[in-house]
């Protein structure tokens, strides 16, 4: 069975056994008809067959690992592990238009990760990127909060929702940012971390804020190189592949030049949200 979804204007197809789709609730707001605008297709199968590959890179986070490697023919392989147990493996075609994922357990977890990876790779040269951040909307614009894991991105969004009237949550973990005709926009996505917030909405970006925990609240505008680094640290991709590295750089560089980017040292309190909003909202 095939279903088509569109996220931030880029379509993709999931081809899988029928029982998968009722589990994919978070994708339903993004479901539509196949219209020729398809970035990639993910084919999902159950299989324990080993895949020969060479490990290139490993990313670990809270008991889960994603190992990135390459087959002898040069295809990208991603292996998803939970507590050192392999849950699935994704094999990408050279041009990232087709992904074959083989799962052993935790099907939805494996499919979610595979789709995020395929989306990242396939869109990297289209001024589009998944962006690790929490995002709120306020008076027609979106504000993105980023920072290292555990810095309080979600907490800061919650403070806006609670104390600043007219604020809504757009996405809490992995929205998509896209530059179109010189304008930077952020789109809700089916990937939102632990918060079930899967909204098919989009807004122009009014500001990006890098958060850092501190014993006080203070905000300042970042200089371009500093801002660029803050963005790059929130965007993943296989930068060692030249085309992907160049594509991400182009997106990050344009974003740095287009959107005001701030540094907020903050406490998890009302004053932090108010200071932030007062400083960044509706200022270009």
């Amino acid at each position, binding site marked *: 069975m095939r279903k088509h979804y569109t996220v931030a204007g880029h379509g993709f197809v999931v081809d899988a056994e029928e029982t998968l789709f009722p589990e994919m609730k978070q994708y339903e707001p993004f479901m539509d008809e196949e219209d020729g605008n398809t970035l990639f297709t993910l084919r999902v199968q159950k299989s324990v067959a080993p895949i020969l590959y060479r490990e290139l890179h490993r990313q670990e986070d809270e008991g889960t690992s994603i190992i990135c490697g390459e087959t002898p023919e040069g295809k990208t392989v991603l292996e998803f592990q939970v507590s050192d147990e392999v849950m699935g493996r994704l094999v990408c075609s050279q041009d990232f238009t087709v992904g074959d994922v083989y799962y052993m357990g935790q099907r939805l977890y494996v499919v979610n990760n595979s789709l995020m990876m395929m989306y990242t790779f396939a869109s990297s040269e289209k001024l589009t990127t998944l962006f690790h951040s929490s995002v709120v909307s306020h008076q027609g614009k979106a504000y993105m909060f980023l920072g290292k894991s555990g810095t309080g991105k979600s907490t800061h969004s919650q403070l806006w929702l609670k104390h600043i009237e007219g604020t809504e949550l757009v996405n809490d973990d992995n929205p998509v940012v896209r530059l179109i005709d010189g304008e930077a926009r952020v789109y809700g996505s089916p990937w939102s971390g632990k918060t079930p917030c899967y909204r098919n909405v989009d807004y122009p970006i009014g500001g990006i804020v890098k958060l850092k925990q501190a014993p006080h609240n203070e905000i300042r505008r970042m200089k*371009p*190189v500093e801002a660029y680094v803050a963005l790059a640290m929130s965007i993943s991709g296989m*930068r*060692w592949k030249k085309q992907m590295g160049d594509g991400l750089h182009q997106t990050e560089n344009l974003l740095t030049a287009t959107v005001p980017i701030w540094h907020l040292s903050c406490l998890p309190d009302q004053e932090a949200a108010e200071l932030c909003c007062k400083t960044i909202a509706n200022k270009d």
Partner: protein
Amino acid sequence: MRQKKGLVLRDVCGEKVIIGEGLEAVDFGRLMCLNDTAAWLWEKASEIGDFSVEELAEALFEEFEVTKEQALQDVKDIVAKWEETGILE
């Protein structure tokens, strides 16, 4: 000497910056800003591969209006800084 693998020269809003993007050097925590001369030399060194101070000084002398002595001194200073930062091997 040669440049470490995995480093790329990027233009970030008009500033030339060396960033680690390769498998050997994925690290955004450390980067180095270069002035125009240093950026030009970095690209030259990249073309040559296994380069020497003398080769770079010669290239600089041929491209820009500087004396041979000045070119050699500039290259020595810049390469010393690269070595200090650990971007050569």
